[in-house]
């Protein structure tokens, strides 16, 4: 006979899990591309490796419409205030991926001009090393971020904080 759908076609879940499920498969990403890693980002985002398979296909060019900030490339000290502003403009909940060696740690640029890792400026959820990282690593990072989103305690904006 097999399984029968329950009468009324409903499923049971917890609100936290459902929110996480919804959020992890609808990431709108904002590419903050400053350097050569951008080529690798394009490859990962476009048809060859197709980030859309994982529900992160929407590239938004306004930080106000996006919830995933991809910091792709070298961030100089002069650019740090701009990056900080872009991050502050994004709506909650929001996540950040540091893409490539320069964004992770400054990379080869251990000098006066370059921020030694964007986590000195904004909080970062997932780091992707590599110079540049392979698109598979980018997809792997996306899966890790989705896992993190699913497992984290979801922010309920309609619930009073602290209650």
């Amino acid at each position, binding site marked *: 006979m097999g399984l029968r759908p329950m009468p009324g076609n409903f499923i049971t879940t917890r609100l936290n899990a459902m929110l996480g499920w919804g959020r992890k498969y609808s990431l709108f990403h904002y590419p903050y591309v400053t350097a050569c890693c951008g080529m690798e980002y394009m490859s990962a985002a476009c048809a060859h490796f197709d980030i859309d398979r994982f529900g992160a296909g929407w590239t938004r060019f306004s930080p106000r419409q996006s919830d995933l900030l991809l910091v792709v490339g070298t961030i100089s000290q*002069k650019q740090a*205030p701009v990056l900080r502003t872009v991050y502050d403009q994004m709506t909650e909940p929001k996540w950040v991926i540091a893409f490539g060696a320069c964004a992770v740690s400054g990379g080869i640029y*251990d000098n006066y001009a370059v921020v030694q890792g964007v986590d*000195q400026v904004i*909080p970062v959820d997932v780091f992707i090393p590599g110079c540049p990282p392979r698109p598979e690593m980018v997809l792997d990072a996306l899966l890790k971020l989705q896992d993190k989103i699913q497992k984290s305690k979801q922010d309920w904006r309609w619930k009073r904080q602290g209650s």
Partner: protein
Amino acid sequence: MEETGILDELVRRFPGDVLEASSELGDAAAVIRKDALLEVMQFLKEKPYEFAMLLDLTCVDYPERAERFEMVYHLFSLSTNKRLRIKLSVPENAAGVDSLVRFWKNADWLEREVFDMFGIRFEGHPNLQRLFMNEAFEGHPLRKDYPLRKRQPMVPLRK
């Protein structure tokens, strides 16, 4: 070498000002006195040599030398297809080097870069401000005595 023609002419015209002239592997280079820069450059820019292009203008820091900095100018003549390098020494506390903006417009940003990175002052420059670093930046990062890992962040760092 055919480039030695220019060097010979330079030595002949500016006997006290050309300190050194050499040509290796087709690279003609002359070291001149700092004060003779404008005269030499004007002569080179006009006919017959017509060095119409200032390919590059940069600086080197030699901390061990008495005259610490060395300016290097790379010139190219479109009409004669010749290249020439002019160098001059600059002491650390010198009044400044004459600006070449009057001869080549692109010297504007090149001199601003050298001012930003080495702190060389250019006399007669129309807008001598930092080109790369922000206005609040202290020091000149390409000087050899700038601390290798000194950071001057523009936003407060998280850690």
